Every structure is written in structure tokens, then in C-alpha cells.
């Protein structure tokens, strides 16, 4: 299992803050997981569209699309940050 978290506008669009997920077969990295979540359609296809500037963190560290994901990881998707 992995834990997937969503923040800010993404959390609102998707209607959830987090979910446990069985790491889907064939999904090896961040880009793969994002593509798989898009297949849910509707708000998922829209919010996670490739044209959208979505950032990702794996185990609470910023991650690139090709970063590997393994069982037990915490993966978070969120919009560009606006603190400070």
C-alpha cells in the first residue's frame, strides 16, 4: 500500500485530502501514478492533466516525474507553492 495526499486547490477539486492505495501493477514512478489517477476521469483527468503545473513529493521531499515509487511510500500531489 501507498498513501496518496492532495493539497490546496487540488484537494478541493478532487474532493479528498488523502487515500490509501494499492500500488497499481505497472506503476513504477511519479509520472506513472499521476497517469493512472487521471484514468479515473472527470475531476481527476482535469486536475492532473499533463498541461497542469502539478508538483509532487515522495516521502515529503520534492520529487521529479521519473522518481521511483515503492510500497509504503507517501506520495503527495499539489499545485505550485505560494508561501512566504
Amino acid at each position: 500500500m501507498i498513501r496518496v495526499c492532495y493539497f490546496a486547490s487540488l484537494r478541493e477539486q478532487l474532493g479528498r485530502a488523502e487515500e490509501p492505495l494499492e500500488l497499481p501493477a505497472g506503476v513504477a514512478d511519479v509520472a506513472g501514478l499521476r497517469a493512472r489517477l487521471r484514468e479515473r476521469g472527470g475531476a481527476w483527468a482535469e486536475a492532473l492533466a499533463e498541461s497542469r503545473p502539478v508538483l509532487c513529493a515522495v516521502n515529503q521531499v520534492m520529487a521529479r516525474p521519473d522518481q521511483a515509487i515503492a510500497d509504503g511510500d507517501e506520495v503527495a500531489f499539489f499545485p505550485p507553492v505560494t508561501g512566504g
Partner: protein
Amino acid sequence: MPAVRSVRVQAEPFDPAAEVDALRAGRPQIGAVVSFLGLMRDLNDGEPVESMTLEHYPGMTEKALEAIAAEAAARWALEGIRVVHRIGELEPEEPIVLVAVASRHRAEAFRACEFVIDYLKTRAPFWKKERVAGGERWVAARHGDSEAERRWEQPPDGA
């Protein structure tokens, strides 16, 4: 002696002067403190803003701030770094963030302070939501913030 680093994320207001005092008090080797105070404005994108909510990613936020402070301490000879960032509800005029950097001489503190706030703007997981007359809106990331971050990809001057 390595720089004394402190990062905090809190819903409560903070006193910028007290934070700066805490950073330098009892450490007479410090010759300079440079601080940046980010404040909530009552206007953004030409529209009056009534209040703001700051969301963050608990756990990652602290790690990201620690990493930025550690990076600054590795690049410059510093005595101390203190970062305080608010979360939750804020009203205009309230401090949002304080970055205070102490060093023996001013040059390092000036540069490191700007570096920390530039990196915080693009690497720390905070998101601002503004309340305006017509409802609420998420603040969009500014292109200028990424430009500011990239300036620091060059080796630090004087290094």
C-alpha cells in the same frame, strides 16, 4: 561553531523583534543580523483582500525549511538562522513569515537572508487562499519567484 538553526511553523502570531533578539542574545561574536518580514497585504491583483488562509503540508514543511536553512549555512559563514512561518487565518498587516540571519559581518547575512526567502517561496509547501468580496480564491504562483530562485544556482559570490 556551526550556525544555530531554528525553523517554526505556527498558527499563533509572533513578535519579530523578540525573534531577532532570541537569535542574537548572549552571542557577542555576532556583528550583523539581516531579517526579512513578509506581511499580509490588503490588495492583490488589483482587488481588495479581506483575509487569508495559509494551508501547508505538515511534516514536509518543516523538513523543507530545515533543508533550506542547512543549505544557507553550508554556502555562507553564518552564526544563526531563524525562520518563523504562520499558518491558518491571517488578516492584513499581520506578519506571515520572518527570516532572520546572523553572521559576524554583514555581507553573509544579507545574501543568506535573500537566499532563504527566495528558496522558501518555491520549495516550501505553503498555499495561500484569499478571501475577497466575491468569495475565495487560491493565490497563483508568480513567475518571478522561480526566476529569483534560479539566481542562486550560480556558486555564491566570494566562494
